[in-house]
């Protein structure tokens, strides 16, 4: 039946839709003879993937938050704080695994406080997390004594190495971690009660409450999970830089949010997907990579990325309207 078929096509569009933008971006650079050969190499893709890890981890948590109808402007500060804490712990002689744990938990704690303030004081997330953005950044600088924290090299720094040990890993362990958590979060959102509840809270909080959902608990959990991801992202940042830098990732929260929104997340809640978000992250990374390869000046790059963000979301809208 035509009706059946039509929804079939719609579904296919919906499934592959997010990839269209990504393929377009890749095709764009792949067609330019100047960089073609270099751009399409596996090594370059690997390097883009590694660069994406930090934003991707942040964006995993941000996807949950945005679906639940919130936003987290403190994500980037939180990443910086976690990277400082990890470096501090390693420097103080803690076992690497303990340092990682501390970094991740710090992120989780910041998220928990965000969630607590949003639910207990019933403040808009934008404001709470904007305040927290300053607080976390300030704390990071404080702890680091306004400096980078130099930490001795440990296996933590292998997590983001493009030539991983053991070599059969092929990709940096960080990339595998992202893939693992992305699958886990996708399953969580789609196939668990908690996931459904996140969508419900974002779509209409009053309804969720009426249906007996513990909306506050759900929101706190979402912010805490997102905080943990920021913490992990901070650990990866430390792994990559080999120092704990309190000034790192300034403004990165906007990249993270952009990735989620390019991937179909709606800032009014109730919409978004992990797959879309991951594609959004890759679109941004490939754009940066391609522009740099072309040797375009930075301002051109800024303009292009700004324009692409708008175009990507406009396309997404169009897709939704026709599907």
């Amino acid at each position, binding site marked *: 039946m035509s009706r059946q078929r039509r929804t079939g096509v719609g579904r296919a569009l919906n499934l592959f839709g997010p990839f269209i933008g990504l393929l377009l971006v890749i095709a764009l650079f792949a067609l330019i003879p100047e960089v073609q050969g270099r751009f399409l190499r596996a090594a370059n893709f690997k390097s883009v993937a590694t660069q994406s890890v930090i934003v991707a981890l942040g964006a995993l948590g941000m996807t949950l938050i945005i679906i639940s109808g919130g936003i987290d402007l403190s994500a980037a500060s939180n990443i910086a704080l976690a990277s400082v804490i990890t470096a501090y712990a390693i420097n103080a002689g803690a076992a690497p695994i303990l340092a990682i744990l501390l970094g991740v938990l710090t992120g989780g704690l910041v998220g928990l406080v965000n969630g607590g303030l949003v639910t207990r004081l019933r403040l808009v997330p934008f404001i709470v997390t904007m305040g927290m953005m300053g607080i976390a950044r300030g704390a990071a600088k404080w702890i680091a004594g306004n400096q980078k924290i130099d930490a001795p090299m440990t296996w933590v720094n292998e997590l983001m190495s493009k030539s991983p040990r053991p070599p059969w890993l092929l990709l940096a362990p960080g990339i595998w971690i992202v893939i693992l958590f992305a699958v886990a979060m996708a399953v969580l959102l789609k196939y668990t*009660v908690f996931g459904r509840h996140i*969508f419900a809270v974002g779509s209409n909080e009053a309804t969720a409450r009426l249906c007996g*959902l513990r909306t506050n608990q759900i929101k706190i959990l979402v912010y805490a999970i997102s905080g943990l991801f920021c913490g992990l992202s901070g650990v990866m940042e430390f792994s990559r830089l080999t120092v704990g830098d309190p000034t790192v990732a300034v403004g990165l929260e906007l990249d993270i949010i952009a990735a989620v929104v390019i991937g179909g997340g709606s800032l009014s809640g109730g919409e978004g997907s992990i797959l879309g978000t991951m594609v959004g992250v890759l679109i941004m990374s490939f754009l940066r990579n391609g522009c740099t390869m072309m040797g375009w000046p930075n301002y051109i790059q800024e303009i292009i990325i700004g324009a692409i963000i708008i175009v990507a979301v406009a396309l997404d809208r169009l897709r939704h309207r026709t599907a």
Partner: protein
Amino acid sequence: MRDVAAAPPVLRMAGVSKSFGATRALDDVSFVLGHGQVHALIGENGAGKSTMMKILSGAISPDAGRMEIDGRPYAPSGPADGLRCGVSMIYQELNLAPHLTVEENIMLGREAHTAGWLDRKAMMRKVRESLELVRHPEISPEVPVGRLSVGAKQLVEIARALTNRSRIVVMDEPTSSLTQEDSQRLFEIIRGLKGQDVSIIYISHFLEEIQRVADSYTVLRDGRSVGSGTMEGTSLEDIIQLMVGQKFIQLFPKVEHTAGEPVLSLNSLKGTRMASPVSLTLSKGEILGVAGLVGSGRTEMLRTLFGLDEVEGGAVVVSGAELTGRRPWTRIRRGLGLLSEDRQGEGLAPALTVADNMTLSDLAPYRRHGLLSPSRQRRAVAGLIGTLKIKAKGPDQKVGDLSGGNQQKVALARLLHQKASVLLLDEPTRGIDVVSKSQIYELIGGLAREGKAVLFVSSYLPELLGICDRIVVFHRGVLVESRPTSAWDAAGLMAAATVGRTSREKPIEQRNTV
């Protein structure tokens, strides 16, 4: 028949069609509205009535068809255009800006001004007049609309439509949240408008209302016009026949049930937003009706009972044990379920699917080893869609795309799915067509027979009298009277609701301090 041949009709719609994706909401519908006439648009939930009126007002554009006003082609580019051409509309879903005051909402888009500067005094005067007209001068023009109850909001909408100097006024279920008294007043107003040569298109599922106010009617079925004519000489049976293809329906089907032991009692329950403490008892297998005027505090009592508003004092006892928690989930765990009167704001998550909305309060059955099975969820929902005859493309359709009545059914379906043993229903048949209503009454009766307890809040007295075992009346936040249904009649209910008189004691006058 009236003779309207001399002048062209006020409005003519011809061959109008509209599809939403695969849903054909309107299919080649034609329609004529005469001068100073009240024309009723009738049809089941999802028949296409609201869609047609939105096309008329310019809110959506048709796929095909022509419209004429006074013989001149009319193709509004948007609601602004429609208003300018003299079409104003009371929308089915409440259509107000919550932050703005009553005055600002009523005058929205038609502000009195000189060169852009507001003339507040003039507007205040107009607004007071129109509130006077709907006989609710106590509604303050300076209160933000977001603070009003649903009923008061609907009155504001009506007041807004009245301040318009329009040729055509469309009323899409204007009385769905009104009490009988307010509805009566609306009919008087409609009569007045007719006298001023204003034509009215009136949509309602209360067929007896239609019989009273309408001059002519058009019946829609599945997006097609299946008949029209004058009201004179047409019986309700004929109309129902056109609507659903069967002649007789029993509006209040009798389902035998007997009350058992008490399951829910409120012992001087008092919430921060309730005017005074309320005590009542509900038994298994009992349908307890709650009557009252707009703002009489019924909704607030339900919300407090369900833990949505702060509890200040008193106790709620369910099956012999006092409720301890303060939040809705504790109520749900003890078998309570609430159907909200505000389906847009609270009752439903419009962006989620039918399946998710119906199962939201109880997803546990679809969980295996911690993971949900969407297909099992869909299957379960498909059954409910069938039982309630919900017109939807399937379990995966977004609830926001359903017609008003079908949305209401989804909200009700959730309580059924949740297998609540005490159902708290706040205006459950709002916007539901007459056939579905009868089904729902039967369903509720069936629930009572299974031993479930039902608290049935309604402003539609016939249904209270038709299906309840006992009816309590609220007046200004106070439960003034409780009697078995057999001891009530419509007049008695009205009297108790309006003056709060009780047979046993002196009237309790309580100042509402909220």
